[in-house]
């Protein structure tokens, strides 16, 4: 009886679901370009409403696939608007510039976005500036710089220098090793299995950092942020934590030295007995701080 009722309900609601959906015309303009790679080349991408995906390749080439996508119920409108998005791919000396933009006075009736799929030799430095989109970079070994606004930034398997400047959006980093400098504003951040040296300046963010045995130094200054530090081996790190008007949750069983140099200011310190040790230097103002042993978390 119950099964019949569910079937009847589905049959009655199916026309409503069909009515709610509309047929949309999708016009895609594809642009392909490639360059033979030279050691001093670097790739500069300036995207606007763009999704940028960068992967390494084994060829000694820089391969660029761009899709400009316009969606609209009217095909003619989609065809017209896809041409409004200007794209530029050119090499000037050792820099390969890839850019898309709408002219200042232009507006699109269709839903417009651009997708870049770019592969480069792993050692090729990459700079991405993007707004209202995505920047995903995997397994490069030299230098990655990202300046993003309202974008999702994903970095996996990178080594070398990382330099991020973000406003809004979020950052997800996994298996990173090298020297990283991150300045983020209203950006949520998850960094997992990180090694090397990290200098992070954050405001208004939800920040989760998962250290690994190879982490050397983490310097974090977070304002009005929720900070969670996860560590596989709590007692092998040196801690120098300063909190200002910030509730703090510390792991049990650790012998922290806690002082209060000023009202609402707490200094929490711990130095391991080892000769060499990695270090957490963290300051949190008007936020929350939690330090605990690593546990698995799901990607947002």
């Amino acid at each position, binding site marked *: 009886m119950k099964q019949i009722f569910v079937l009847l309900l589905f049959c009655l609601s199916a026309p409503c679901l069909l009515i709610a*959906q509309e047929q949309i015309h999708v016009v895609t*303009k594809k642009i392909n370009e490639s360059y033979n790679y030279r050691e001093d080349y670097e790739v500069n991408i300036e995207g606007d409403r763009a999704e940028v995906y960068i992967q390494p390749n084994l060829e000694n080439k820089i391969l660029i696939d761009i899709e400009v996508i316009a969606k609209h119920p009217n095909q003619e409108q989609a065809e017209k608007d896809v041409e409004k998005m200007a794209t530029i791919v050119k090499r000037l000396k050792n820099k390969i510039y890839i850019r898309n933009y709408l002219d200042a006075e232009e507006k699109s009736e269709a839903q417009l976005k651009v997708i870049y799929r770019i592969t480069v030799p792993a050692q090729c430095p990459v700079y991405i500036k993007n707004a209202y989109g995505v920047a995903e970079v995997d397994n490069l070994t030299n230098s990655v710089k990202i300046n993003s606004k309202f974008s999702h930034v994903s970095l996996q398997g990178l080594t070398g220098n990382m330099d991020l400047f973000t406003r*809004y959006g979020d950052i997800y980093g996994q298996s990173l090793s090298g020297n990283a400098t991150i300045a983020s504003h209203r950006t949520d951040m998850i960094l997992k299995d990180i090694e090397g040296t990290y200098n992070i300046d954050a405001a208004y963010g939800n920040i989760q950092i998962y250290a690994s045995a190879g982490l050397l130094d983490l310097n974090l200054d977070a304002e009005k942020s929720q900070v969670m530090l996860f560590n596989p081996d709590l007692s092998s790190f040196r801690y120098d934590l300063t909190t200002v008007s910030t509730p703090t949750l510390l792991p049990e069983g650790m012998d922290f030295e806690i002082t209060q140099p000023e009202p609402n200011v707490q200094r929490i310190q711990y130095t391991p007995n080892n000769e060499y040790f990695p270090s957490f230097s963290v300051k949190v103002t008007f936020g929350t701080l939690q330090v605990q042993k690593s546990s698995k978390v799901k990607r947002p």
Partner: protein
Amino acid sequence: MSTEKQNQLIRQAISELPDYQAPEQLWPQISEQLDIDQKERLIQRQLAQLPDYHPPETVWTEIAEGLAKAPPKNTWLRLVRQPLTWAASFLLLFSLYWLVTQSQGPEVSYTYTTQAESQWLLESDWDADEADFAEVVQLHQRYLRTFDDQSAASLQEEFDELNTAREEIKETLDRYGKDQELIRQLAAIERARTQIVNQMAQQI
């Protein structure tokens, strides 16, 4: 005066004239010039004895026609003789090759598909609560004028910053078309604004 006496006077006058010796090299030069003159006279004599010969008129006509035509072109010979021409030709060919290889540009193609989408998801409802927000903000500003409260002032600054971000997203929606990802970001900003407005309401 007798002729003998005149001669004597002349001889005497001549003997009184100053002595002048011609330079030694003058005599060989005079002798050489005399030899040349003699050969020239001999040649002139022999030339005068040569028979006259007049070519037929057709020869002159052919020569005149030949002169009127462009000179024969032997380009390779000229190029060999003129290295600058060689260099210029090579540069021109190289430039043409470079232009041809460089001007190909990226490949462009188009595809056309259709898909079903729920357009009602993209309806704009984000300005629905603005009147309520404005009322709270106005009351909060009145509170700020009365009390010197730093945390309340920072709330106001944060609210202004979020308003700027909200306007940026709305402008992007307007320029690039409505998109679910952008609406998701706008919703996150709206939640943050709501949180601040609630805090303001508590302070009033």
